[in-house]
């Protein structure tokens, strides 16, 4: 730093060296930072670009790389999307997925807010063990649960109904949300609640009027995360749902659109694109909450 301040006074001969050094570090920065970063970006985004491109490409271009440039569309078409929306049950699948995601998010938000409040604020004997148990519940992966759950769902008479998904999704949403919200409640000063207690507020009033308004960012994070996780869920939906019309989007694309030996890549990609859009749009509105909840959950 001191060198940079001193050089202008020293004259032309002296300025030459720092400038070449600056250029050198710029080139170095280019190679060490921007070049790898650009490679990462290209690789991470290419599948989406390819998905979008395929969704709007006419079949003639799709299977002919020699005459058409595969990285561009010369005559974009909406055929695949039209096929998807009017010849398949795609709109229904979207509605089912949306309903399941919204309902299970709602259930798990309520349950985990209450649980997190009890664990973090009511401070009863053994509260940290309940917290630990809920943390451990997050480590139980759906892959070892789907077979017993399938028999349970069948016995409860919920097989093939979206209700089965609405009830089972909270099992992996509640641990995550509770965990996230415990962290948020921890950051709210306890003195605020004490003041309210002295003023004669009941516990439920405190929760509703003081803690919850202050925990809104946490609630939004937990909500959008739950929504995304239930939108993405696959194995339960695959195991519990049989009939075509009550499938969720990820399952339906894989089981209903893949037919025979000739894959309709255009329709498949259009379906994937449309299925990703709601989450992607949701994501673009709440990016900061996603990042903070992801990093907050890891740090907790």
């Amino acid at each position: 730093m001191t060198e940079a301040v001193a050089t202008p006074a020293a004259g032309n001969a002296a300025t030459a060296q720092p400038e070449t050094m600056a250029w050198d570090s710029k080139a170095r920065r280019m190679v060490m930072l921007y070049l790898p970063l650009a490679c990462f970006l290209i690789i991470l985004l290419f599948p989406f670009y390819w998905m979008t491109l395929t969704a709007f490409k006419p079949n003639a271009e799709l299977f002919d790389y020699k005459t058409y440039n595969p990285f561009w569309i010369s005559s974009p078409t909406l055929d695949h999307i039209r096929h998807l929306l009017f010849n398949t049950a795609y709109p229904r699948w979207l509605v089912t997925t949306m309903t399941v995601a919204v309902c299970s998010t709602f259930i798990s938000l309520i349950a985990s807010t209450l649980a997190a409040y009890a664990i973090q604020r009511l401070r009863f004997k053994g509260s940290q063990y309940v917290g630990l148990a809920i943390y451990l519940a997050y480590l139980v992966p759906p892959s070892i649960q789907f077979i017993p759950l399938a028999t349970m769902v069948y016995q409860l008479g919920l097989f093939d109904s979206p209700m089965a998904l609405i009830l089972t999704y909270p099992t992996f949403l509640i641990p995550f949300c509770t965990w996230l919200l415990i962290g948020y409640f921890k950051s709210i000063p306890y003195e605020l609640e004490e003041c309210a207690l002295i003023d004669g507020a009941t516990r439920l009033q405190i929760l509703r009027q003081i803690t919850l308004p202050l925990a809104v960012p946490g609630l939004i994070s937990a909500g959008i995360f739950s929504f995304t996780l239930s939108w993405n869920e696959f194995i339960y939906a695959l195991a519990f749902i049989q009939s075509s019309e009550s499938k969720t989007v990820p399952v339906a694309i894989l089981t209903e659109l893949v037919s025979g030996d000739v894959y309709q890549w255009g329709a498949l990609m259009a379906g994937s694109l449309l299925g990703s859009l709601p989450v992607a749009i949701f994501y673009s509105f709440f990016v900061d909450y996603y990042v903070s909840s992801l990093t907050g959950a890891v740090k907790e």
Partner: protein
Amino acid sequence: MSATTAAAWSRTRQEPNWLVRLFEWKPFLVIACLLPAVGLLTVFLTYPLGLGIWLAFTDTTIGRRGIWVGLENFEYLLEDPLWWNAVFYSVFYTGVATVGKFALGLWLALLLNNHMPFKSLLRAIILLPWIVPTVLSAIAFWWIYDPQFSIISFLLVDILGVRSTNIDFLGSAWPARWSLIAANVWRGIPFVAISLLAGLQTISPSLYEAALLDGSTAWQRFRYITFPMLLPILAIVMTFSIIFTFTDFQLVYAITRGGPVNSTHLLATLAFQRGIPGGQLGEGAAIAVSMIPFLVFATLFSYFGLARRKWQQGEGND
């Protein structure tokens, strides 16, 4: 004066009814608050976990209640080459994909930790692969890995001229295995990078300044400051990554469904294939249960990672 106001105040305050008093009684309040979460988790998580372990010791099939057969399912699995194959590929898949994800993810996190324009936008874009439903991006990979119209083959054969034939990504065992690992790494990088970036940002710059004054090299700063400070968060993220990679289902089911010739079955996809379409619920449950020892191992890893964290911070200020 003060006596009259106090009396007026106490008159306006009504005796709370029994419901309000019930909710003021702490034990009841605690139970009422915990009931929805604990109830749901017990019924749909703990009970199925026990039920799954019980099913693993029975010969239940779809539509028929099974009887206790003891260790028969597991004895059968130990002689089943397909199960051994799935164990091998699950471990291989988890090992290679975790190393790949963490090496590349750490690199990306270190890159993103520099000052540059549009940093938050960049961070948002990078998380995209993790947000989009796995199955849907897996289908995109399936298309990218198409034997005839793969864009990678096109690049290598027609543009770069490195190869003379198309790569048969999913047609034979080893290429299919590596292709799936590549797709898993692709999906895992953002999560690792963003979590580690959060860890990097908590490292105090004064440590680096002190090291610079002592004449350290870039490698030394990474080796003796960044890496040890990052270790606690690295341990947690890695545990999660290992657990969810080992029990992965979606990616393999969407791209290869265990093929070609059952060479890419993970334990989860094998359990699904035997249990749901195959109808052998008992055997499927046994395969699922055989994943548990690995998961317990990973959880213990997480526990010791956390224990180390308190030790590193010196005092219990967390």
